[in-house]
């Protein structure tokens, strides 16, 4: 029974963190967007700097009607938000949160991370198809093209790090950086490709074609409301956190840092990367689909392959 209890504790812990994280990030996103546009952001609902706005949002979403469009593909429509939560929760398994703290330090942590996140596409496809709405389907198609094109450079850009660290285990990669120095400095090309590709994987501006409001309403979650829509948002903000956390683990030394305990450094660095993501979101305009695919296939892919070759050559000569 012990193994079950431990597993249950981990699952509950991750779910609580996912909720708290989304709570914070939604508020942070509003504040960052507000101050960049020289507004205040939420203030009225209460709490320090209007932080109860997120709670009010959650209450509102809980109270909303769960409306299913006519002619929807019932099971696909009902299950899509649940499926979108699965990869969002599973990836916490391998994050190297502290020096000795990982929920399950798999030997193939990095590949596990990439493989689990590729499930997001299925959820988007289920939502887009199941909604019986042309805008949803268009959004799902765009998301499919986008996730598919950027998954390849995303994975290839991490291989440089794997070559230097000599392992796919995330704890080993972080530990290698404590002696070797952060991989950001040697793998800056890899980091840039990784960062661009991970923003594209997250469907965030400037790559938010899948839900471009001015073109296709809200893309694949046009027909969702209430808690089902909230689950999509929850998964999106959780993915924002986890992909930033992966970037920190691979390029910024994870929990490595002086004075403070490891997990504090890890969270601090992750939220800084999250902030940079928000900064980019509120600066750049949305790009066109052909520019998106050109960037993915004609620029990021060759650059990441060249990065792997260069890293391998340097390692061989050294």
């Amino acid at each position, binding site marked *: 029974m012990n193994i079950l209890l431990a597993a249950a504790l981990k699952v509950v812990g991750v779910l609580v963190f996912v909720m708290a994280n989304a709570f914070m990030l939604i508020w942070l996103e509003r504040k960052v967007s507000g101050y960049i546009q020289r507004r205040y952001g939420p203030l009225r609902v209460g709490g320090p700097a209007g932080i109860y706005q997120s709670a009010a949002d959650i209450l509102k979403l809980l109270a909303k009607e769960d409306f299913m469009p006519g002619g929807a593909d019932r099971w696909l429509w009902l299950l899509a938000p649940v499926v979108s939560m699965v990869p969002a929760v599973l990836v916490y398994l391998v994050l190297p949160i502290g020096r000795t703290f990982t929920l399950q330090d798999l030997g193939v942590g990095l*590949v596990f991370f990439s493989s689990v996140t590729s499930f997001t596409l299925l959820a988007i496809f289920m939502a887009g198809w199941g909604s019986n709405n042309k805008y949803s389907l268009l959004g799902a198609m765009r998301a499919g093209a986008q996730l598919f094109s950027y*998954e390849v450079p995303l994975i290839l850009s991490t291989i440089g790090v794997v070559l230097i660290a000599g392992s*796919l285990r995330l704890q080993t990669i972080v530990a290698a950086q404590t002696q070797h120095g952060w991989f950001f400095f040697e793998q800056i090309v890899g980091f840039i490709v990784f960062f661009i590709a991970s923003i594209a994987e997250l469907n965030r501006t400037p790559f938010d074609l899948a839900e471009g409001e001015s073109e296709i309403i809200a893309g694949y979650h046009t027909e969702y409301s209430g808690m089902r829509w909230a689950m999509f948002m929850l998964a999106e903000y959780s993915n924002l956190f986890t992909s930033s956390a992966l970037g920190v683990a691979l390029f910024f030394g994870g929990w490595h840092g002086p004075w403070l305990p490891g997990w504090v450094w890890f969270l601090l660095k992750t939220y800084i990367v999250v902030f940079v993501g928000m900064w980019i979101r509120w600066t750049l305009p949305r790009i066109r689909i052909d520019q998106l695919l050109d960037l993915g296939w004609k620029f990021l892919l060759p650059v990441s392959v060249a990065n792997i070759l260069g890293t391998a050559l340097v390692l061989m000569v050294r």
Partner: protein
Amino acid sequence: MNWPMVAFLFLAAMVLVSAWRVATTPSITHATLFLATTFAGVAGLFFLLQADFLAAVQLLIYAGAVMAVVIFAVMLSDMRDIEPVRGRGLAAQVASSQFGWLPLAGATVLFVLFMLVYVHAAPGWPKTPVAAAPDSTSYIAGALFGSYALPFEVASVLLLAAMIGAIILTRQEGGRRS
């Protein structure tokens, strides 16, 4: 009954049921998603066998990339071609077809059965579980780039040829649709 056994039964049931539904569901979209479930279940079985690299790659390549391609094929197809076949269960389809598929299907079933029996009876196959490798990634890498380097390279050349062939076959002649 121990927990790995429970997990195995659950995953096996998931694989079997969803594989059955892939063949019998009338809608190609549902078939696609059931196929994804099958792949995910197989990945779970690999995890259960502590073949974690294989499991992660199964998820990445089959449940991720191959499913993306299949989804693209579904979405880019003409909608009229992929209308679900309403009111035609498997029995009705079997009854209405001309039985032209029977020899091929029978041969396939016989072949698979024969292989299963052979695998079970042939010498040299370990029938008792062996201890799992602590880090299967390096073993797989050693095997792929060491003793099996030539077959690996041949397979990659074959895939490259297939890719070039696909590009040539789907290329529009003279930039115009024929």
